[in-house]
């Protein structure tokens, strides 16, 4: 559908009447956004790639060292730990969030009284930013748990999972509700007349029809977990720390984004490594995004 919209037939836009007068207004229409885009994205992005090949404490003393930063980043046990830890958080939260969100959405589309109110309650945490939300839970956990959340690795892990679920179930629920509303009423009625049980209707009609929503939500929760920063920093700060046999420090509850941040700003000598980690992180996130695009669009074609 999108490709069709992009491949405009030549001559559709009247050149003399529309295209050229707009083109003359380039400075007013496109330039402001493009200039800001260069400052806010394009130049920092390219400069970031360049700096990932350099040793530097500030951009002015950058020295080209080829792939040393990348080698150091990949050898860093803290970074590797952060990768696997992030993957573990992502997979578990993905399953929990989607199962819970689908269940709630399914119940709220059955015509239960007060559905609108419940929808609002479940959605609200999503509007609260990561910092405030993380701090609320930090206070709750500190009052609730026998030990501080920054002292026990498992508390930090399940704390993060709890916060992620609390925040995202409502958002995914909205997407599932939209998907469930689009399930044709007559299909469900036909199934009922044919004697299908509620469970059979769910597994044979409802779930296959909302498959696009499931794909979207799966990838959204996955990217959200991989990019998670604010909640991780506020809730457990990557603590507790652990020392390996070789004396290297591992932050046991630190996810990728926080690991990159700490590499940059806790030690100005490791900024090159931090930038190399950031590039690797970008590639990882980009691969997930491209995979998502491929999958969702293939689904659309099938329909």
């Amino acid at each position: 559908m999108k490709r069709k919209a992009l491949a405009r037939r030549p001559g559709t836009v009247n050149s003399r009447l529309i295209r050229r007068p707009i083109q003359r207004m380039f400075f007013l229409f496109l330039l402001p956004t493009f200039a800001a885009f260069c400052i806010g994205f394009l130049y920092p992005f390219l400069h970031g790639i360049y700096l990932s090949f350099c040793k530097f404490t500030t951009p002015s003393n950058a020295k080209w060292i080829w792939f040393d930063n990348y080698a150091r980043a990949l050898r860093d046990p803290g970074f590797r730990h952060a990768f696997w830890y992030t993957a573990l958080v992502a997979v578990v939260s993905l399953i929990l969030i989607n199962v819970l969100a689908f269940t709630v959405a399914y119940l709220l589309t059955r015509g239960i009284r007060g559905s609108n109110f419940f929808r609002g309650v479940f959605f609200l945490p999503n509007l609260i930013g990561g910092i405030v939300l993380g701090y609320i839970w930090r206070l709750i956990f500190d009052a609730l748990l026998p030990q501080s959340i920054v002292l026990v690795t498992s508390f930090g892990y399940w704390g993060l999972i709890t916060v992620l679920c609390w925040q995202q179930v409502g958002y995914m629920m909205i997407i599932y509700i939209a998907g469930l509303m689009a399930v044709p009423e007559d299909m469900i009625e036909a199934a009922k007349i044919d004697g299908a049980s509620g469970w059979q209707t769910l597994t044979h009609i409802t779930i296959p029809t909302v498959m696009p929503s499931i794909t979207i939500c799966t990838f959204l929760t996955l990217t959200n977990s991989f990019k998670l920063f604010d909640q991780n920093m506020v809730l457990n700060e990557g603590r507790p720390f652990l020392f390996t046999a070789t004396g290297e420090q591992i932050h046991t509850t630190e996810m990728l984004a926080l690991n990159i941040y700490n590499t940059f700003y806790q030690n100005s000598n490791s900024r090159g490594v931090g930038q190399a980690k950031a590039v690797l992180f970008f590639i990882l996130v980009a691969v997930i995004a491209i995979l998502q695009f491929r999958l969702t669009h293939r689904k659309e074609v099938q329909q």
Partner: protein
Amino acid sequence: MSQKHAVYVKPKQETWKTVVGIVLALVSVFYMMPIIVVLYNSFKTNASINLSAFALPNSETFVGFSNFVNGVMSGQYPFYQSAGYSLYITIVSTALIIVCTSMAAWYIARVDDAFSKIVYYLCVFSMIVPFQMVMYTLSRTANRLHLDTPWLIPIVYLGFGAGLAVFMFCGFVKSIPLDIEEAAAIDGCGPIRTFFSVVLPMMKPTLISVGVLEIMWVWNDYLLPYLVLDRKRFMTIPIHIEYLRGSYGHVDMGATMALIILSIVPIIIFYLTCQKHIIAGIAAGVVKG
């Protein structure tokens, strides 16, 4: 729909619905518990917050609104300043993004030359780049260009947020029939007038979706303003809250609770007034994906 259903619905199923309704009501209370606990703690004395955080305020521990007054007005960096900067940055950035990117998207969709195509694909590309990739170089660039004040940080937001907005507006502009703009041009409208009095009003649904998305992003954003702004002089609400957390134990906990509540209140008001648009925006934005 309900009428059609009535044919099949049996009384037994109705009780099932009541039970689920009650269970959901209980779950809702638990779901809101963290916020409720912080809310009633904001009316308690410091000592009783530290002693028993889950206890409700009683006649001895209840302090009325004094935590709120203390939190907002006092301290080295009073909260009303942070709130003011947050409000200003959110409103100006969102307005700037909406106006500039809708104009840019119209240019890109209608002119459609090689340069526009390049800009469009760069915008799409920028959507998949995580902030950590550019955080160091972006904050450096912003500092060097003196964009590190609340007054000019909207330009940084426009730059980093342009991708998604341009993408969404372009998708919409391509669905607008050209005849309307041609008619306007034949009637003697220049591009500026055509855009503002013909195209922009038609874009209203997308304007609202983009606006809601940008408001939620900018208001809650922490890392970008933290790295770009001059921290000693300017704070936003998330920076302020994180600063209070960083000084855990050394700050007035009652005031902290009050400030957390104050930073949630605008969000609740925003949700209640724009509920329909927020829900529709999420559903539409995701389905188009």
